[in-house]
């Protein structure tokens, strides 16, 4: 775990930082705040870049070839055949590297040049971020990023409190409180700060975001420091005018940068396969070399020895064996084109092109934030077509992280839906007119509500409605902030509460101010102050919170909100009818994936309350068992409540999330949710985005604290699944047939189970002895949700799957807490827009909305994979066909390494004559268009199964290439053995053979690519016909009189093309060769498509038939049908209420303290509730609405919900 993030190797045992003492701090030479991610500068670029390029095996291989070619005895080709392409490759790569580095320089510069206010020599001066140094005191203002890791000294708020948003760091958007040491909190002005000369001794830089230990030595006193006093780089200051801090860690040593991890070089599986294949080809090359070398030895000893009359041996070549040895090297040079250097360049170009297509896709452009999809790496595109596991963050990725008050049920009546004149529910869209809140001057303009009935009810002064909103305005822990008259800003610990209070505000019950003892509302324009008598705080066992207030009339009221089950249990029996109605409403809300709360109130007797209050005061001083006693007391008074209604908050999923998930699971992609959020929230989202559908037979929740317990739970869950399936399988086998494959059962198993695992259990489960159990179980389940996980754990889960399943993983997230997982997964995707840029910068792809993932994978990924595979198949075929002709010729030229072709042809074949058509194919080819790719997610499966290019496919195309080379040589051979020109002159010479075979080859590979292309655009036409034209143009140009006159020894083929291609018989040979080379492949592919059509073939046929037909949307919006109502989530945090009632953060109060972090919930009882309630909801969830015929069912679903 440690090793995973280990970066800095130099040892720093302890850090000494003295405020306002640059000279002192300079002694330690700590890292400054300058950030450098670039690799080169102008001078180092060439040497370093070349060095890096020559670390690639391929480049070294070509360099070795080049050196071999310089040795005259071996050289069978001129040096230019290799150096041209090599220089081209190096140049292209260098340009690309330089561009990348330029952008890194720019981004570095931008960050480094941000302005920050630093206290230097008695005054605040604007300094660039990069000039901030350890030991400096800097000032941060509201909404500014913190430039370095600083120790909070003082702030504009009382007691040195300040609020920060840590979204960049851990992805949590709720505000956090930080508090300065009391001793430093009054250093509020510059002169005092100037005199501050405390020294901090603390731990060396590390990556632990939530830990800091150190001591401040000042005025001969020691003050312990912890994380609560630190502001880390990347945080944003909120609701605090300003604060001052002492820089402890800067630049690369900040926790943020330490957490960035090393950018590991990601490689796709295809690339690895290519590398393996290249090694195989090398072995094959060596084999051929050996065969030909042996042939040469035999030939030289049998024939060559006697042929010395005309061709004497060289002086040093006195034995046939030595000649064989030299021939071996010569053949290695000739046959090297089976591993063409242009392969690597072409692959790079293709990927770059595919990346651009992703960048250019308008269907992945989000207009609201003006962000287009962006491919940051150009090396992973084809891997997008092979993804099997998706690891998704929740907040900001699946959800918008915006809570919206969307519906409510008041006194048995629902509000929030709108109906048209035929009493049918109308879908709410952006165009729907929303309620006008202009009657309320204090309203929040961003709040939107569509059902005007509720406003009518308010205006009619319906008592229940008034009480409902009064409750919402009173019973919460929100802090108000009124900057100017009427400009209210709420500081909510949880977005849910914020949403509820904002709703109350808009409906005329404006929460305006609070003191520890009072709450001031503005009820329908009238200021009312309530006395806060008691606050029965929320915790995860109680699952509710209540306040007891005295209204101006002197009545004491208890307002309670909480989980429906809990509230319903404590209702007064007289409320039963209302309870049933409300319960139905709650079910309906829950089916729509809303987060629900039930609201209830109660009038209290003055006397009863006094008695209870006394008991409470007593209980709160008890030392033993205080919590329990308090809880009992709370429970005692929260009885006999009167139900007011229920609220439904939408944790707004991003648009299209359920559809995307449904579609991706149809493509056999498993989606795991890894979130730092609480289990309830996580599961709620699971329900609302169809990951935990109703027909899920069991949800296993692992939430234990010790290794043994976790192990036991994992084991029993696994046994449960396997045991059940065994029972059912034996039954099935008896009933149906004996030949059922196991995997079929595995499929059925996967459809039914879900695993939810907690962070602390995960810590144990990820240990080596348990990880296999975890993985097995997780893979048996359809859905896996990990909640309360740390960034590191996210990475570990991804790593686990990556390591043991050998599947392609994709991680998608939006916050800095997802960075580790994004970097670990094969492919990292960042959601840009919501929570800062960390994830986006670490990611390989980024876009604004989760739903674009389906297009990225099912369209772009699939195409990329398809194109890359087609490209590779054709490329290998082409090069085998091209090169092996030389092998066959070896048998007829005394194994002397004589090439069939002109040297120029060898130089230009791969780079000029055939590169563009195959590039065009690799860039533009589409077997199935994008609509159909999305419509039939099953088309994605061949990628996951690696079907389009694997070792078998490689052998097939190699075989085809070898066959073609055989025919390419032997048909001209047959014809040329007795060939005579039309004017009788001899015509069976080498140069004619070379031109004939070369022309046949170019035509054959062009025809073959024509057959391989599925999508003939104008570009394909241009490139194919263009390449043929260019071939003939260059052929005639290089064999023209003019160029021969200038370089007679370089272009010895003068006139061959003219003499050769003017012969009818040559064209007959070329035609014959072409037909014979192409027909076998054609027959095979026709038979395959005709007899065993793949889904792709079928879709293509269909596409052809109804090219113009309208495309119906087969996957309609999948409506929520789950009954996960009791899985309702509270985003409350325990302890915050305490902070408020105690007044610790109120300006007039005295004792400052620190809020305790929220505790993790333990109970798992509600899961049983889920299972119990499961039967109550009968609405079938037809999730797998795949075919168009299913859309009918999808349309009916909402209706059914109503009748339900």
């Amino acid at each position: 775990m440690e090793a995973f993030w280990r970066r800095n190797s130099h040892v720093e045992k302890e850090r000494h930082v003295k405020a306002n003492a640059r000279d002192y701090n300079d002694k330690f030479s700590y890292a400054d705040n300058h950030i450098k991610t670039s690799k080169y500068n102008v001078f180092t670029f060439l040497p370093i870049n070349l060095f890096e390029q020559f670390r690639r095996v391929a480049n070294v291989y070509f360099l070795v070839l080049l050196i071999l070619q310089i040795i005259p005895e071996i050289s069978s080709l001129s040096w230019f055949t290799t150096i041209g392409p090599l220089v081209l490759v190096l140049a292209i790569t260098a340009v690309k590297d330089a561009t990348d580095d330029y952008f890194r320089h720019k981004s570095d510069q931008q960050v480094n040049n941000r302005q920050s206010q630093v206290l230097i020599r008695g005054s605040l001066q604007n300094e660039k971020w990069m000039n901030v140094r350890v030991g400096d005191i800097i000032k941060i203002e509201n909404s500014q990023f913190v430039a370095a890791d600083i120790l909070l000294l003082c702030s504009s708020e009382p007691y040195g409190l300040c609020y920060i948003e840590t979204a960049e760091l851990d992805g949590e958007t709720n505000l956090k409180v930080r508090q300065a040491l009391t001793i430093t909190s009054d250093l509020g002005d510059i002169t005092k700060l100037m005199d501050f000369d405390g020294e901090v001794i603390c731990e060396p830089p590390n990556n632990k975001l939530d830990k800091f230990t150190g001591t401040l030595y000042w005025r001969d006193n020691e003050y312990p420091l912890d994380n609560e006093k630190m502001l880390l780089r990347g945080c944003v200051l909120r609701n605090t005018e300003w604060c001052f801090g002492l820089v402890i860690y800067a630049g690369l040593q900040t926790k943020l940068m330490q957490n960035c991890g090393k950018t590991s070089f990601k490689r796709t599986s295809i690339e690895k396969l290519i590398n393996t294949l290249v090694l195989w080809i090398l072995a094959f090359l060596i084999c051929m070399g050996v065969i030909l070398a042996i042939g040469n030895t035999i030939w030289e000893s049998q024939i060559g020895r006697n042929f010395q009359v005309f061709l004497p041996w060289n002086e040093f070549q006195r034995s046939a064996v030595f000649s064989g040895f030299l021939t071996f090297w010569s053949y290695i040079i000739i046959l090297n084109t089976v591993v063409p250097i242009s392969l690597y360049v072409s692959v790079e170009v293709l990927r770059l092109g595919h990346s651009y297509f992703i960048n250019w896709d308008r269907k992945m452009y989000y207009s609201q934030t003006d962000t287009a999809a962006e491919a940051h790496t150009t090396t992973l595109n084809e891997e997008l077509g092979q993804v099997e596991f998706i690891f998704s963050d929740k907040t900001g990725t699946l959800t918008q992280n915006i809570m919206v008050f969307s519906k409510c049920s008041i006194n048995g009546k629902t509000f929030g839906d709108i109906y048209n004149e035929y009493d049918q529910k109308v879908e709410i869209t952006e165009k729907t007119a929303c309620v006008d809140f202009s009657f309320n001057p204090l309203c929040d303009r961003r709040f939107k509500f569509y059902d005007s009935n509720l406003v009518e009810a308010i205006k009619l002064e319906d008592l229940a409605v008034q009480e409902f909103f009064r409750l919402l305005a009173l019973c919460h822990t929100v802090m108000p902030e009124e900057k100017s008259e009427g400009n209210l800003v709420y500081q909510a610990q949880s977005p849910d509460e914020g949403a509820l209070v904002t709703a109350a505000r808009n409906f005329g019950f404006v929460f305006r101010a609070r003191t520890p003892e009072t709450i001031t509302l503005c009820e329908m324009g009238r200021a009312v102050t309530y006395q806060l008598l008691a606050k029965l705080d929320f915790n995860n066992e109680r699952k509710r919170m209540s306040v007891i207030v005295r209204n101006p009339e002197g009545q004491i009221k208890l307002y309670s909100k909480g989980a429906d089950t809990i509230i319903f249990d404590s209702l007064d029996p007289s409320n039963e009818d209302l309870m049933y109605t409300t319960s139905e409403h709650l079910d309906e809300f829950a089916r729509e994936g809303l987060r629900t709360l039930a609201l209830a109130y109660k009038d209290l007797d003055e006397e009863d309350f006094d008695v209870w209050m006394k008991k409470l005061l007593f209980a709160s001083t008890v030392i033993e068992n205080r919590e329990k006693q308090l809880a009992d007391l709370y429970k005692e008074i929260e009885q006999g409540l009167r139900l007011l209604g229920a609220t439904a908050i939408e944790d707004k999923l991003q648009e299209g999330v359920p559809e995307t998930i449904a579609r991706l699971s149809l493509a056999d992609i498993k989606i795991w949710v890894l979130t730092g959020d609480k289990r309830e929230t996580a599961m709620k989202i699971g329900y609302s985005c169809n990951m935990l559908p109703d027909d899920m037979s069991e949800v296993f929740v692992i939430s234990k604290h010790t290794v043994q317990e976790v192990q036991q739970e994992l084991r029993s869950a696994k046994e449960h699944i396997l045991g059940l399936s065994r029972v059912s399988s034996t039954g099935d086998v008896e009933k149906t047939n004996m030949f059922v494959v196991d995997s079929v059962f595995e499929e059925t198993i996967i459809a039914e189970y879900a695993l939810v695992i907690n962070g602390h259990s995960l810590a144990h489960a990820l240990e080596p002895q348990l990880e296999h159990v975890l993985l097995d179980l997780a893979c048996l389940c359809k859905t896996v949700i990990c909640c309360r996980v740390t960034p590191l754990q996210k990475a570990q889960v991804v790593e686990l799957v990556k390591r043991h399943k050998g599947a392609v993983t994709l991680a998608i997230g939006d916050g800095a807490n997802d960075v580790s997982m994004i970097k670990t997964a094969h492919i990292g995707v960042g959601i840009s827009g919501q929570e800062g840029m960390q994830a986006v910068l670490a990611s390989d792809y980024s876009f604004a909305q989760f739903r674009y993932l389906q297009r990225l994978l099912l369209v772009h990924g699939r195409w990329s994979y398809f194109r890359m595979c087609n490209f590779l198949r054709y490329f290998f075929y082409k090069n085998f066909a091209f090169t092996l002709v030389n092998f066959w010729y070896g048998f007829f030229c005394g194994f002397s390494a004589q090439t069939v072709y002109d040297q120029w042809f060898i130089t230009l074949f791969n780079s000029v004559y055939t590169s563009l058509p195959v590039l065009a194919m690799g860039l533009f080819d589409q077997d199935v268009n994008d609509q159909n790719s999305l419509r039939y997610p099953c088309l994605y499966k061949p990628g996951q199964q690696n079907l389009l290019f694997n070792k078998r496919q490689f052998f097939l195309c190699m075989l085809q290439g070898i066959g073609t080379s055989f025919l390419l040589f032997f048909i001209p051979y047959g014809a040329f053995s007795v060939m005579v020109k039309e004017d009788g002159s001899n015509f069976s010479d080498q140069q004619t053979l070379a031109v004939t075979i070369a022309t046949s080859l170019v035509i054959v590979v062009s025809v073959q690519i024509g057959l391989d292309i599925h999508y003939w655009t104008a570009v394909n036409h241009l490139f194919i016909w263009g390449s043929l034209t260019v071939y003939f143009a260059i052929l005639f140009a290089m064999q023209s009189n003019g160029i021969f006159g200038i370089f007679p020894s370089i272009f010895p083929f003068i006139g061959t093309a003219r003499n050769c291609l003017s012969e009818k018989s040559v064209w007959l040979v070329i035609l014959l060769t072409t037909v014979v080379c192409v027909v076998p492949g054609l027959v095979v592919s026709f038979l395959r498509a005709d007899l065993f059509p793949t889904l792709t073939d079928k879709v293509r046929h269909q596409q052809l038939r109804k090219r113009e037909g309208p495309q119906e949307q087969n996957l309609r919006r999948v409506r929520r049908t789950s009954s996960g109502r009791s899985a309702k989530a509270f985003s409350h945090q325990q302890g915050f209420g305490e902070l408020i009632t105690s007044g610790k953060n109120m300006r007039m109060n005295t004792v400052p303290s620190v809020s305790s972090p929220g505790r993790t919930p333990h109970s798992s009882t509600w899961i049983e509730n889920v299972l119990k309630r499961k039967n109550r909801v009968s609405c079938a969830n037809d999730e797998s609405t795949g075919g168009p015929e299913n859309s009918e069912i999808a349309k009916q679903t909402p209706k059914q919900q109503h009748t339900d």
Partner: protein
Amino acid sequence: MMASSYNAKDEDGHITVTGPGGGTLRSKKPENTAFKQQRLPAWQPILTAGTVLPAFFIIGLIFIPIGIGLYVTSNNIKEFEVDYTGVDMSSPCFNCSQNFSWNSTTPCTCTIPFFLEQPYESNVFMYYGLSNFYQNHRRYVKSRDDSQLNGDMTSLKEPSKECEPYAYHDNKPIAPCGAIANSMFNDTLELFYNDPNGTKVQIPLTNIGIAWWTDKHVKFKNPGVGEANQNLTTAFQGTTKPLNWRRPVYELDAAANNDGFINEDFIVWMRTAALPTFRKLYRIIKSPSNGMMPTMPRGNYTLEVVYITTMSKNLRQNLFNQLNPDYPVRSFEGRKRMILSTISWMGGKNPFLGIAYITVGSVCFFLGVVLLIIHHKCGNRNNSADISN
């Protein structure tokens, strides 16, 4: 690392710091072009029975007639071949190839009679054929200097290294250098018609027009052409003849336009054969101008092969086993042939192409039938009917 997320955040209505470059208002929305959206209009061919099967039949129907035409044409070409290597005791050339004394200066001549069954009309082409002769060996192929052969004076005096070991002799540059030139075929073949009345008429052989025009006029040039007062002898001054040659290169032919590097026999030889068994055009027998008589009427003919000692004494001694005085092919089991042939529109006799075309055509037609049957029996005709997810 954190880039410009400043302006992305605008919560609570606070005015946020405008990041650098925040003034650019151009939308990042990608352009809606067919190219960028991958919607380029395209032809999407599919291999269907409707397209593939007719293709096979068409190929069959085109190839079979071509094949028959080629086969018939090839069969109509008359060709006569004589092997005069002299391996057998019975061969008339056996004596010459075995017993010819190398220190004799008189050439040895062997006479081979043959009978032409059919008259040969129009131009008749006379080839010499060699087999098992590896003119395509890499070291042999590159052993030439094209600059020198193109008349370059520098290369004439300093032949390319590629020509080694035939670049210099006795410190003089060899012209033409290299193994190809050195091994030039030098048997002299003469044809006689034995008139039925008993007279032996020598058939006139033309050695002009046997090389490619481009070779003769572009690729090969004598050095010093165009310079005043320069004849070939002076142009080649300071060079020496190839070791195997009897005469220097400027004495290859009496005619000035066929002497030196542009000697057509030489050019023909220099165009190296692709395969170890090859034939090269030796002479043309022009058809008589009146056109009434066949060029070579049916009857008896005699081929006279004149062997000329080609090798120097030294070399002969080095190669102790090479005692053949004629153009030496027997050491490596080579064969020498003389071929007489007429030609047609498709060149010389070439049964391979015709047969190959007929075969391929028939196979394609047959495949078409087989595929048709397979398609009808078990082909998946309702392809898209059962698309399921």
